């Protein structure tokens, strides 16, 4: 008897089903083999902070123990950041009566952690956590309160200290960019952190000033490409005349129109620098920020070779404030403008006035000594420098802070912020 293979007809639907079952089985088998292989060669990854430990850290921090933030900041991983995002929100809402304070505490914790990551590769985690905290405030539906306002000021100061200007103003401003996703970080990077601050506190001009400072910082290398390796010096910030002329052509031809939109890699140009100048001029009419706006308007005017306008702004500062930081900067820039005008004696007087505001400031000492040497007054220059070196440690130079936005206020802002929840 011959055996006959029994071949039963199978419907197409059943065939597909069988194929799927077979595929799934194979995939499962492979996954099992892979995982057993993996178990042989790797130890399971340990998440450094569990739910309980995140709660404990936040409890300690809210109680005044800032070292809790430092502990969290040590050896971070993306998983750890994700665990924090998941658990910190629950910690905030765990106690309804104190919820607003707990929200500020968790957000403040994020800033202290981020401070530890400033200037390191871990700044990428800081961006994500700041976005998370910003989202916590924005999505809460709660009315805007002083603690939140302080948090925004401190966070902007911190991000300025990291010179992460694109994070502050967002990608949409220059190029449109891609649409934001649902994650808080996507949203932040697209719209810009300051946009969210300004939306919550529309009457606070400091956020408008911070946005203008971000644009100013992004525009720093405009017109200086290839001229000098030192990109940070005040003198190196001056835009070359041919670059100004080229940009002037555009303004003349298209006075009312927007400048051509550039790719992100190109960054801002002279037209944007002029726009920044106008922004600072407008902001200088706001009394609470007028002095700083005048300093910055003066420096931007110098950069675009508008020396008389620069002096108009700079000489206002001393009438508006007694803050040594701002007086020093205004006098320092004034000295540089006077040098450009070949008014050497006035330049020397301005640098000396800067040093009266902040004795032994390095930038004014350097500029004053250089000017005196150029004038052939070597002995006088040596006296200035001897005075600079005589006392240690040297005074903190305001110019070091200038390029870091409001980072100089970081310590005082955080002290006030912590007082909001402790």
């Amino acid at each position, binding site marked *: 008897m011959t055996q006959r293979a029994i071949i039963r007809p199978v419907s197409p639907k059943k065939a597909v089903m069988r194929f799927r079952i077979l595929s799934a089985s194979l995939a499962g088998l492979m996954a099992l083999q892979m995982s057993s292989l993996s178990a042989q060669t790797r130890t399971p990854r340990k998440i450094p902070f569990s739910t309980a430990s995140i709660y404990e850290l936040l409890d300690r921090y809210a109680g005044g123990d800032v070292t809790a933030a430092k502990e969290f900041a040590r050896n971070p991983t993306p998983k750890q950041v994700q665990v924090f995002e998941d658990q910190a929100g629950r910690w905030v809402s765990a106690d309804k009566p104190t919820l607003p304070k707990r929200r500020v505490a968790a957000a403040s914790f994020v800033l202290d952690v981020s401070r530890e990551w400033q200037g390191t590769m871990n700044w990428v985690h800081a961006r994500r956590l700041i976005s998370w905290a910003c989202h916590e405030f924005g999505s809460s539906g709660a009315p805007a309160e002083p603690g939140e306002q302080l948090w925004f000021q401190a966070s902007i100061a911190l991000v300025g200290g990291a010179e992460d200007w694109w994070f502050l103003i967002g990608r949409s401003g220059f190029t449109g960019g891609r649409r934001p996703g649902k994650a808080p970080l996507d949203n932040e990077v697209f719209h810009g952190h300051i946009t969210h601050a300004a939306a919550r506190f529309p009457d606070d001009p400091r956020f408008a000033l911070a946005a203008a400072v971000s644009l100013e910082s992004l525009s720093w290398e405009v017109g200086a490409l290839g001229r000098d*390796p*030192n990109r940070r010096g005040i003198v190196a910030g001056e835009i070359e005349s041919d670059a100004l002329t080229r940009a002037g052509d555009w303004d003349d031809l298209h006075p009312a129109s927007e400048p051509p939109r550039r790719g992100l890699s190109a960054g801002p140009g002279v037209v944007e620098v002029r726009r920044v100048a106008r922004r600072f001029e407008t902001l200088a009419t706001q009394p609470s920020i007028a002095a700083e706006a005048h300093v910055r308007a003066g420096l931007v005017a110098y950069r675009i070779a508008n020396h008389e306008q620069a002096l108009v702004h700079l000489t206002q500062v001393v009438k508006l404030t007694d803050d040594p930081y701002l007086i020093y900067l205004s006098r320092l820039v004034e000295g540089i403008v006077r040098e450009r005008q070949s008014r050497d004696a006035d330049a020397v007087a301005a640098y000396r006035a800067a040093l009266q505001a902040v004795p032994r400031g390095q930038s004014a000492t350097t500029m004053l000594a250089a000017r005196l040497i150029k004038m*052939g007054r070597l002995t006088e220059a*040596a*006296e200035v420098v001897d005075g600079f*070196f005589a006392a*240690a440690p040297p005074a903190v*130079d305001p110019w*070091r802070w200038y390029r870091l936005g409001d980072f100089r206020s970081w310590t005082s802002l955080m002290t006030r912020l912590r007082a909001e929840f402790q």
Partner: protein
Amino acid sequence: MTNPRSCAMLALAAVGALPVVMPAQEKQVFHAATDVVSVSVSVRAGRSPVTGLTAADFELTDNGVRQDIAISIEQIPIDLTLLLDTSPSTADAIEKFRSGAQQIATLLRSQDRVRLITFATEVTEIFPFRTGGEPMPVEAVTVQGGTSLHDALVLALARGPIEGRRHLVVAFTDGHDTTSVADGETLAFVAARADGELHLVLSGAYGTDYTQPPAVRSLRQAAEQSGGELHPPGRFNSALDAFKRVVDDFRQSYVLRYTVRGVKREGWHALEVKLKKAAASRYTLHARKGYFGG
């Protein structure tokens, strides 16, 4: 009496206006009414100093007017400013400097003086001028962020002229400025007018910088304006090696001295020094490019 207007001239006179026959260090070198200018000139054939030259071998013009010169090699005390870049990019070079610092000190003579200035973002004088030949306290040298190279050079060069002493500034750096307020143009201008010879020893931690002319052009210009030199990465094996070469050269340099004739004493004086010898094209000559006449 010295004319008050000639204070700047003193700066140059102090470079070596000693009678050739006298021991230099104990004398007041410039107290005559005449405007005597001294110019330090180093002449090398490859890596070796050229010795045995006479006044007849040189030609010097002051603002385009040829001057009558006398020549000497003089043992004038040195005021040495060591300038050390302590930014993180030069960490290896700092360690080498620390280990060689005491040997550097032994190369100085008791009549010489030395000070150490470090710079990252901030410029700090670790110790002021002290007697040469003694151990240098370098424990306080630490790595910090930023590099204010231009500012540090301006501050180091801003030393008043001191009679009977020559100022030598030797900077160890990678040449990569990031935080100065002064630009390269300002630095070159200062180096040309200050009373000091500047040598920049590039460590090469940022080796690529040397291949980028804008990054080193202003530095080289500053060094050459002062009569010094920019030493590219790889020229020396160590800080000690570099220092020894620079100081040896400085000590073996010729001092050309002349009484200014045929030009106004005020204002900037452009100097040009040439060798008349037929073999001059094979030699490298370094001399400062000018001085202020008050």
